[in-house]
């Protein structure tokens, strides 16, 4: 099949570019389809009146504008496609540019890391940027955690938010009910989430890609519904309030005499806590990154990558796919749980609202955008996504529309990720000619 499509592509590239008439016809068809699609949904707006009776009004202006946009857009897309040439053309980049890009690629990670360390120093007085930084870092950590499951082990997990929720609720409930401190609860939250990961992992071991995705999605929804309905434990839709703030290893960040500021002999400021939270999530994220990089060099990491590339071959080579999948789930879930505990302590309030399917999809989109497996790619993708959402804050209602379209276009245009992608860590660099004494056919 691949051969057939490749040859078809080749012939279309050889033939002259279609003329204006063709483009016009295509745009006209698109516009007609758009007219039918949007006729009722956009051309008519329903509204419930004051007496509860549903009325409607027509919006033919909007409809015409939409159809015209589709017509124009279709022409532009077709022209762009001709200018860009057929998909799959190899573009020759001059070697000097290539080496420059390679240098930039190697340099970007340390530069980014140093910059991140300096953010609280540079933007000390800009509360907004610090808060945004904390948010981005939380998603970087979630992305890196999910990366273990999706990027390394190749298991599509649509319910990652469940572990995030488990982590957040374990900290919130342990802290508010038993008065445990953040530093005791953090590992506990991680362990509980990892336990949930194993719990989910056990039944889904036998499932393949798509089925696995749906089951994880169902699991995420079940966790959310249980949180909403188990009111006596979780407070239901009202959530948990008054979650204690973290302490600096036992020293509270309060204006009192025993607070950190008083002990250090400096003036108290609420910014201290924000800066502390910033470095806390940075440390957690870097821990995630470090553990992932180390694990990747261990046999278990190699097994994850082998599982991603080919499950059948993996089994044939004697790798225990059961433990491999379980460890991937547990590791990813643990990082999700740690991030959840951080989320709870940062917000001081959590409710089921924060743990919807959208959140899972967002983290998944970050991993996919980052190239599934590339650590740097995921970090940059989180920055782009969360930063992008902040930039277009005014267009809040179009957010999911743009997000969904971006996901579709990304899959069509660069299915292996926008920023980078991870090739297997170990592979044979060149095929070797082996003496015919060793192999029957001659070449090995």
């Amino acid at each position, binding site marked *: *099949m691949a051969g057939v499509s490749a040859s078809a592509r080749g012939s279309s590239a050889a033939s002259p570019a279609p003329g204006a008439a063709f483009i016009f016809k295509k745009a006209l068809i698109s516009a007609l389809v758009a007219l039918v*699609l949007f006729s009722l*949904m956009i051309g008519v707006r*329903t509204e419930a009146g004051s007496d509860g009776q549903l009325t409607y009004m027509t919006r033919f202006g909007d409809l015409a504008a939409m159809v015209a946009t589709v017509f124009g857009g279709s022409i532009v897309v077709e022209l762009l496609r001709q200018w860009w040439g057929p998909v799959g053309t190899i573009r020759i980049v001059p070697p000097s540019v290539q080496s420059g890009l390679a240098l930039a690629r190697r340099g970007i990670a340390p530069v980014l890391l140093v910059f991140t360390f300096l953010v609280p120093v540079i933007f000390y007085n800009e509360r907004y940027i610090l808060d945004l930084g904390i948010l981005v870092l939380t998603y970087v950590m979630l992305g890196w955690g999910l990366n273990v499951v999706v990027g390394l082990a190749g298991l599509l997990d649509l319910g990652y938010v469940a572990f995030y929720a488990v982590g957040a609720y374990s900290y919130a409930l342990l802290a508010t009910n038993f008065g445990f401190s953040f530093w005791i609860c953090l590992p506990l939250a991680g362990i509980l989430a990892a336990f949930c990961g194993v719990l989910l992992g056990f039944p889904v071991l036998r499932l393949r890609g798509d089925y696995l995705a749906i089951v994880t999605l169902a*699991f995420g929804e079940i966790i959310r*519904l249980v949180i909403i309905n188990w009111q006596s434990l979780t407070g239901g839709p009202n959530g948990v309030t008054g979650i204690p703030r973290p302490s600096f290893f036992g020293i509270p960040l309060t204006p009192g005499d025993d607070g950190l500021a008083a002990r250090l002999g400096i003036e108290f400021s609420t910014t201290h806590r924000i800066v502390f939270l910033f470095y806390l999530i940075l440390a957690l994220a870097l821990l995630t990154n470090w553990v992932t990089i180390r694990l990747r060099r261990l046999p278990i990491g190699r097994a994850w990558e082998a599982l991603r590339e080919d499950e059948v071959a993996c089994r044939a080579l004697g790798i225990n796919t059961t433990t491999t999948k379980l460890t991937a789930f547990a590791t990813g879930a643990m990082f999700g749980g740690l991030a959840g505990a951080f989320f709870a302590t940062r917000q001081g309030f959590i409710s089921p609202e924060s743990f919807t399917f959208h959140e899972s999809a967002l983290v998944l989109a970050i991993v996919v955008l980052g190239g599934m497996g590339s650590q740097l790619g995921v970090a940059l993708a989180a920055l782009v996504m969360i930063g992008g959402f902040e930039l277009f804050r005014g267009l809040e209602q179009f957010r*999911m529309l743009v997000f969904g379209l971006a996901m*579709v276009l990304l899959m069509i245009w660069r299915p292996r990720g926008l920023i980078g992608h991870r090739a297997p860590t170990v592979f044979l660099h060149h095929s070797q000619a082996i003496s015919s004494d060793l192999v029957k056919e001659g070449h090995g």
Partner: protein
Amino acid sequence: MDYFAQQLINGLVLGSIYGLIAIGYTMVYGIVGMINFAHGDIFMIGGFIALISFLILVSFGLTFVPVILLIVLLVAMLITALYGWTVERIAYRPLRHSFRLAPMLSAIGMSFVLTNYSQIAQGARVKPVPPIITGGYTLHEGVDGFVVRLSNVQIIVVITTIVLLALFTWLVARTRLGRDMRACEQDQTMASLLGVDVDRTISMTFVIGAALAAVAGMMYLLYYGQVDFFMGFVAGIKAFTAAVLGGIGSLPGAMLGGLLIGLIETLWSAYFSVEYKDVAAFSILIVVLIFMPTGLLGRPEVEKV
């Protein structure tokens, strides 16, 4: 006993709606091998289009209910089918030879697009309509005064489902298109070598699935008297559960699965707890996939290397 009989009727009606959606999932999975995640939202769009065309017809002064229903049904099926076609054309066809997770992710993106699109176009509030079909029959009146009722809406939902299912089974078993579909399901490369237009067949599969989802959307509107932009998500997952339970790829299986899911959900709500009815449906999905991945009427899947 009367209470149980009433719940049985309600469950079967709800199950018919799920079954209609499930057919779309099962057809697409059988042919393309992907979960059409946006199918639940196609169902939601179908409900909205039925609602809007109904409003317009009523405001034009049409009062004869059967004619209204017929026109609404045709309009909803037509426009929603075009939505199905467009979604396949934009989001799935370019990915046919991409890596294995790509169509799934693209489908999730499309689902967000459709949900948000109808939220922007029609607003986030629930859209209620006055009951269109009223009346019904009293089947049995118990000594304690509990009445088992079968309303006209319920009769219409069940009859429409049966007619459509018969029509559809005929389509797959007897027509040229149905033969092409079955050929593509077995081996796309071989089918294309033998002169089957694979692209067209896959498009038609999406079109038919979307048209059936539109019928389900209209039945939902008639039965519950309301639509909202978020109803596609949960209904979609439940219908997918139905498709899996019946054996994915099997048409009678999808209908059977739909009826079972409808019954389980209704009985669970009636005898245990309404709050946990979705949890029950999702748990069934997990349990079925673990212990019976081929479903009730499905064929065992052969793993090809």
